[in-house]
């Protein structure tokens, strides 16, 4: 077997998967997006920009996605970093394993069940009831952007923690000692050594969480109660409820394009940051 055929064989399963599950559906959606709605639902082939002209009708979904996804990503980063730092740098080897398992534990149950728990916690008989006990009345949490944000951060935190943990864990601790030895106070050591060397982990975590958030629909559906909805919810609605496939396709194509643009800009930024330090560039 030549090296060439071997390489092709290695790539074949993933390549086939990629073609069947991604390229073909995307092409279909792309073609549908220029079609028209059939009277009984589904799509009539055509070439019209009518669906795209209608996009502003779903502006709220795009706005919610494009605000809550970045805010959710950033919040998850701010919460995950200290946790990952503690796990990788400060905790004793014994505790490290226990804590890492605790970070994964939520994954053992479905996000659906965990979100229901949040419905209760954020609902009228949960946290607001507790607040009333201490005299703070009239707080509404469930079905607000805040509730969705809480759900998002909770659900995606482990995905942010792990890449950062890995980059901090493989950081040579003697570099921190060297920095201190050269007169840097702990805070300056963090800024000049720890943080720059964990950028690959931060970049990976943010990318992972952000991309997944852009397509999120379950958490807004459960915790946003139809008031706070993402593009994902609009798609579910258009494809499954109103069966307006053509319009749904246009929304989907737009989401993909927005995602591609955001990710490209993000990559550029990260790589520019890493240009002077090859070892931290991610691509």
């Amino acid at each position, binding site marked *: 077997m030549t090296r060439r055929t071997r390489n092709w064989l290695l790539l074949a399963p993933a390549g086939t998967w990629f073609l069947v599950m991604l390229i073909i559906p995307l092409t279909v959606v792309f073609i549908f997006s220029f079609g028209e709605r059939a009277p009984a639902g589904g799509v009539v082939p055509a070439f019209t920009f009518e669906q795209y002209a209608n996009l502003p009708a779903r502006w709220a979904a795009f706005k919610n996605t494009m605000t809550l996804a970045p805010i959710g990503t950033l919040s998850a980063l701010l919460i995950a970093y200290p946790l990952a730092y503690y796990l990788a740098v400060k905790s004793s080897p014994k505790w490290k394993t226990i804590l890492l398992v605790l970070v994964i534990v939520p994954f053992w149950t479905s996000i659906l069940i965990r979100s229901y728990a949040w419905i209760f916690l954020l609902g009228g008989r949960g946290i607001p009831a507790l607040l009333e006990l201490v005299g703070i009345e009239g707080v509404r949490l469930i079905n607000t952007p805040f509730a969705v944000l809480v759900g998002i951060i909770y659900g995606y935190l482990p995905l942010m923690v792990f890449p950062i943990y890995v980059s901090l864990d493989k950081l040579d601790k003697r*570099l921190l000692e*060297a920095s201190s030895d*050269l007169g840097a106070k702990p805070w300056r050591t963090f800024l000049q050594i720890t943080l720059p060397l964990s950028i690959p982990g931060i970049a990976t975590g943010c990318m992972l969480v952000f991309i997944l958030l852009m397509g999120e629909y379950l958490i807004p559906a459960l915790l946003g109660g139809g008031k706070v909805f993402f593009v994902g919810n609009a798609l579910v609605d258009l494809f499954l409820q109103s069966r307006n496939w053509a319009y749904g396709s246009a929304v989907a194509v737009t989401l993909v394009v927005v995602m591609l643009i955001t990710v490209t800009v993000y990559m550029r930024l990260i790589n520019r940051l890493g240009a002077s330090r090859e070892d931290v560039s991610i691509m």
Partner: protein
Amino acid sequence: MGACTPADSKTIAELRGVTKRFGDVLAASDLNLSIREGEFLSFLGPSGCGKTTALRMLAGFEAPTEGDVLLDGDVVNDLEAHHRPVNMVFQQYALFPHMTVAQNIGYGLRQRRPRLPKEQIADKVSKTLEVVQLGGFEDRKIWEMSGGQQQRVALARAIINEPKLLLLDEPMAALDRKLRKEMQIELQDLQRQLGITFVLVTHDQEEALSMSDRICIMRDGRIVQVGSPQELYDRPNSRYVADFVGTSNFFDGKVADQSGELTTVCLNNGLHVRGTPVGELISSGEVTISVRPEQMTLHRQGDGLAVEVRNRIFLGEHTEYLVNHEALGDFLVLSPRQSELTEGAFGVGDKAIVSWEDSAALVLDRN
């Protein structure tokens, strides 16, 4: 070498009864040591004997469990590393991978408050690079540098801060033999040129002997003996030191008579040998006689131990004989070329007499 570090020069750092425990592990035990300003001091001992621990307490990475660490006369036990006028060259260099050579070297200066002007830092970095013979390498990435070059960068990164103490933890362990020899000479030159006090950790006796003004020999977390290379070689205070510093022949025995200036030892074969006592002898009288191979002479006849030559290695200036004594076993004799020329060489299987001066035989603690 002694000339540049007068014995009466001031103490720059001191360990006073310093003990360090890691849980149950006793890494350093009751260390007492004065480090003199401007000297080149080495900690020498096998792996795991506590050398790095001692160094790390001087650097401020570890606090002693008991006792005091003093810098410039002040107790600094709990003073953190970033407040100490001490710099360290790490075992694997620990260079910052995301910074250029110049950024690495200028790191210490950039931490100074009030801030130093950028030009002044750049200028000093270039000068320091010249000192370690890496002029013009400012903008190189760390991973573009060879092992030897990385070591120079690590050295430059430390000395640019003009520390009171420069600590070096096995800095040459990762270099190949030839490069190590070169670096040893360069380090010595550098130390004389800068006048900074160097404290080196090594397990390589040759390295310690060739570079240091004084050597501190460690064993199982304790300091066994401190002295100049010559002192340690000529007057080791225990078999351990005699064995670690250079090569020696050891004959076990018991003290028979301790009344005079010389001690008489009854060797295990019943032979009585006189020697000079060094250090404290344990009360049981279980001792060992240590005689360096070059202090022994081989004769055709006369008084001494009757031996048979087992092996002969011609080394140019010297010839090394492995000889065998019926009761005492094998040991080494080093004959200068000159005596071979006058007395004639011995061949394998020849009978010979080995003798030495009483003063060359040291009576040592057997441990």
